[in-house]
């Protein structure tokens, strides 16, 4: 423990530093005086004695320093000196400091925000005990356009039973829009329908009441209960503890609130927030989705597993492989190629579709963020470089007075570190508040939560960014400034730039790099924006303008089939009487919204070989005016009419792709297929409708068909209203009519078609990408403008004298302007060239994120390059014009 006592002594000394210095001073003075007295006694003159005493003592200042250094605190003293001096320099150049701090704040802010989001969405583990044991179980399947699917409930149960020794399998099927009524007011909620062991396996705790209990809710028809999320409880019930035991309606059925989830747990998906949780039996009853409990084709369960302690992913994988093979043998039709992948839960984010592009997407944005930071660094390096040349004089003199180069360097670096820290703090605050804002914004009709985890990872990331900036931007100017030779500098007169050509070269390179970097950012932004435009302009097969969607489910009010039909008929009549209505229709499914399941298609006369599955197609139940209301063109045959009644022959309208796919080269009208079996009953095709988008915007054309609502009953329907009135204004009127029919509880959702298309299956992800990329692009552009302007105007000032001479020798202002502009233009051109190459390389990774535009889209590249060169040349032109107006006499006397 010797070193401990030593450390204690050192710290005591640090605390009494003043006293220490005074003591040492006194001690040394005493020594010198006593020596002097002794010398005088031995016969020296007073002056000689003093000199001799000093000589024998040695260099007092250096000895004092050495005594001080003995305590090992000199680094601290130097640091405080440097910091104090640094602050003085910074406050003396407030303008420059402000620009640097602001630049950094933007750079670090953008990075913190992006990394904060990526961290929250991809890196942080679930907020549950022992999260490293949680694995995602994903069914691999090549056939779906969305990649892998979830499990069907029977598959889920089999895996849960058969892998129990190594893993506790649990999962949930999310009801994305479920009506929740309490105290006479309805909300549309995202409710996680959870397996009975879901919460016990996760190990989460209720904030209030209880969660779903083991064994609860895996048989249809059980008593319905619901657990509120903490956020929804706060939002909707103001955190009232009395909600426990309250009777509410979930999906129209009476249910009891039994608990509130703890605050930290917001659902198993890192970007979707659950408003509430309920047992599976509360979300799926026998009537609404009878298939859920029995069908092996309805893949709604997204499944996780908690590995038993000590079990590795590989061990779990081999166990799941065994079970998969067993099930494939047992159910050859449905489970033939069953293949379950066991993976780190974080790799399955944001949703466990095997080929999701999200990781690439975040990677791209982290790179873009780094690019912004690099641009910021370049700017700062430029500013520091300019300042370094001003300070070369100071440095040279200090070096001449005995300042060691390392000490001067350290001081310069301390200065840039200080600035970087200031900018870093500003940036982290900016970034943290940005992404906090993003994560706490509740988007009313999209259950998306941009998770923001400000934890050590984000902090370290930003810190590394700051240190990187300080060193990369500060080192080279510092090296240059301290390299100055006092002789050269002092002989140079007022113009303190001893670096001359070499220095300007570096600054020019930096400027070109800046143009290149911002071009890359802008091209990525341009591609995303073009992709969004393409998606928005994309032919989705119907006209979404001026449409209002009202989704209802009268079965929630316990209507019978006849009552339901009657209800819709009277509602349609009432709505038609509202002002400005052009067309009203009913449909079971809304494109890019709630979709009906995949339906097997058995083509008449072409029996499905045994052991094979019938091909599938998605479909919709619609009424006769539907095609008019949505403006879907019928290109062959006819649409439905009132004659296609319940008792009339079964009919269908198919889309172009379905007609081509199932009856290539034939006239599809009059052809028949069955939804049930090879033996019928058959429906006859009476018309062909234009292709459109049905489930997600990015999908390829796919087979789709329509059947009349009269012949294929569903209780849940969406009333679609086309009117000349803005649909937002129409909504309350329609709501009023529904109230008049005493059916308020049936309302699931009222949305304009435009709003509905803005959802997660629609434009949302494209808009998010485009606006994020555009923000980064603008930031990059801003930094580039500041950088180019700075370099050119600095160069112009540095060359004042030269320009004056040129003018005195007869150069016209126009020639001066051309001279400066030409040099600027060369740099911009070089930057553009590198930028184009860089952008081309960077955008290779983007092909999966873009729709309707190629990652090497020449139009984007050229227009962005054109725009950037225009703006940067403008940034050259302004300082160049100023230089042009130099009065030669003033310029010559400049120094």
């Amino acid at each position, binding site marked *: 423990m*010797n070193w401990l*006592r*030593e450390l204690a*002594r*050192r710290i005591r*000394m640090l605390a009494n530093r003043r006293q220490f210095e005074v*003591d*040492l001073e*006194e*001690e*040394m003075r*005493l*020594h010198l005086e*006593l*020596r002097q007295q002794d010398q005088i006694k031995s016969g020296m003159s007073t002056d*000689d004695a003093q*000199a*001799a005493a000093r*000589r*024998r*003592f*040695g*260099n*007092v200042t250096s*000895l004092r320093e*050495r*005594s*001080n*250094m*003995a*305590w*090992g605190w000199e680094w601290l003293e130097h640091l405080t000196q440097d910091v104090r001096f640094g602050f003085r320099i910074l406050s003396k150049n407030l303008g420059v400091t402000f620009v640097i701090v602001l630049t950094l704040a933007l750079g670090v802010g953008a990075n913190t925000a992006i990394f904060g989001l990526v961290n929250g969405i991809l890196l942080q583990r679930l907020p549950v005990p022992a999260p490293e044991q949680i694995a995602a179980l994903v069914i691999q399947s090549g056939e779906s356009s969305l990649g892998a699917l979830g499990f069907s409930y029977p598959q889920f149960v089999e895996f849960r039973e058969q892998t129990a020794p190594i893993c506790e399998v649990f999962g949930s099927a999310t009801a994305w829009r479920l009506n929740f009524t309490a105290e006479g007011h309805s909300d549309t909620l995202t409710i996680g329908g959870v397996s009975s062991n879901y919460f016990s396996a996760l190990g989460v705790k209720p904030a209030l009441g209880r969660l779903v209990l083991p064994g609860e809710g895996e048989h249809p028809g059980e008593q319905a209960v619901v657990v509120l999320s903490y956020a929804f409880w706060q939002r909707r019930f103001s955190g009232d503890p009395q909600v426990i035991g309250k009777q509410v309606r979930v999906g129209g059925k009476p249910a009891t609130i039994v608990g509130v989830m703890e605050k930290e747990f917001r659902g198993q998906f890192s970007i979707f927030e659950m408003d509430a949780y309920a047992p599976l039996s509360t979300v799926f009853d026998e009537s609404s989705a009878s298939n859920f409990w029995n069908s092996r084709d309805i893949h709604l369960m997204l499944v996780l597993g908690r590995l038993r302690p000590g079990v590795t992913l590989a061990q779990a994988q081999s166990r799941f492989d065994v079970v998969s093979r067993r099930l494939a043998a047992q159910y050859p039709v449905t489970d033939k190629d069953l293949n379950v992948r066991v993976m780190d839960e974080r790799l399955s984010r944001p949703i466990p579709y095997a080929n999701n592009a999200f990781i690439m997407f975040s990677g791209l944005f982290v790179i873009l963020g780094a690019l912004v930071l690099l641009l910021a660094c370049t700017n700062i390096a430029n500013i520091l470089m300019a300042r370094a040349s001003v300070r070369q004089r100071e440095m040279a003199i200090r070096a001449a007075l005995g300042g060691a180069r390392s000490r001067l360097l350290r001081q310069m670096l301390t200065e840039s570190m200080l600035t970087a820290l200031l900018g870093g703090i500003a940036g982290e605050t900016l970034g943290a508040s940005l992404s906090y804002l993003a994560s706490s914004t509740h988007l009313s009709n999209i259950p998306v939560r941009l998770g923001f985890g400000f934890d050590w990872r984000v902090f370290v990331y930003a810190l590394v960014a700051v240190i990187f900036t300080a060193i990369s931007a500060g080192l080279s100017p510092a090296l240059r400034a301290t390299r100055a030779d006092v002789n050269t500098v002092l002989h140079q007169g007022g113009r303190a730039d001893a670096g001359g050509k070499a220095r300007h070269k570096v600054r020019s390179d930096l400027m070109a790099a800046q143009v290149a970097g911002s071009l890359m950012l802008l091209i990525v932004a341009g591609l995303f924006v073009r992709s969004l435009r393409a998606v928005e302009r994309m032919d989705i097969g119907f006209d979404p303008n001026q449409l209002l969607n009202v989704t209802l489910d009268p079965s929630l009010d316990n209507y019978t089939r006849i009552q339901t039909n009657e209800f819709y008929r009277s509602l349609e009549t009432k709505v038609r009487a509202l002002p400005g209505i052009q067309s009203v229709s009913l449909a079971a499914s809304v494109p890019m919204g709630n979709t009906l399941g995949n339906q097997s298609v058995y083509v008449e006369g072409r029996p499905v070989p045994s052991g094979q599955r019938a091909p599938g197609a998605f479909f919709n139940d619609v009424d006769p005016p539907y095609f008019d209301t949505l403006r879907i063109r019928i290109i062959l045959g006819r649409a439905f009419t009132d004659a296609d009644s319940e008792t009339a022959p079964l009919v269908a309208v198919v889309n172009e792709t379905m007609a081509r796919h199932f009856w290539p080269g034939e006239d599809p009208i009059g052809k028949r297929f069955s939804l049930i079996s090879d033996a019928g009953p058959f429906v006859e095709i009476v018309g062909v409708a234009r292709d459109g988008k049905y489930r997600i915007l990015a999908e390829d054309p796919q087979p789709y068909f329509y059947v009349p609502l009269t012949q294929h009953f569903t209780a849940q329907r969406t009333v679609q209203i086309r009117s000349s009135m803005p649909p937002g204004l129409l909504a309350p009127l329609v709501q009023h009519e529904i109230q008049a029919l005493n059916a308020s509880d049936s309302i699931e959702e009222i949305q304009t078609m435009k709003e509905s298309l803005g959802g997660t299956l629609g434009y949302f992800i494209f808009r998010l990408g485009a606006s994020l990329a555009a923000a980064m692009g603008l930031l990059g552009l801003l930094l580039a403008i500041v950088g180019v302007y700075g370099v050119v105007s600095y160069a112009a000032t540095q060359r004042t004298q030269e320009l004056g001479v040129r003018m005195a020798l007869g150069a016209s202002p126009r020639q001066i302007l051309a001279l400066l502009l030409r040099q600027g233009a060369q740099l911009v051109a070089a930057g553009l060239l590198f930028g184009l190459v860089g952008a081309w390389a960077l955008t290779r990774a983007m092909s999966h994120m873009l729709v309707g535009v190629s990652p090497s889209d020449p139009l984007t590249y050229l227009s962005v390059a054109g725009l950037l060169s225009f703006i940067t040349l403008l940034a050259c032109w302004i300082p160049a014009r100023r230089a042009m107006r130099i009065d030669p006499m003033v310029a010559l006397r400049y120094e």
Partner: protein
Amino acid sequence: MVRSLELHRDEIPPGTLYLLILKTLGRSGELHGYEIANSIQLISEDVLQVEEGSLYPALQRMLIKGWVTAKWGTTAGNRRARYYQLTVAGRKRLAVEMSQFERVIGAITRVIEAV
């Protein structure tokens, strides 16, 4: 030149300053800096010259190591002075330094005499 008027003195061998200070303090008890310098010079009969000022950084280092303690007192001439005194650790150190020194000197002597 002033320097030529002075007696020629030998610089102390490097690393022995601690030993000299420890030994001096060990012999005399409490001493202040000037007394230590004088004492070393006197006993070595003016052969060993300490750059007097370098005593002070050395004393600081010894304070840190805990070999000596210091307290303020008054000199015979009624001046305030800092008096240094060996600690227990200092005494142990003295023994260590002594034996090290003797070993080295012994070895050097043997090498020289072998010639």
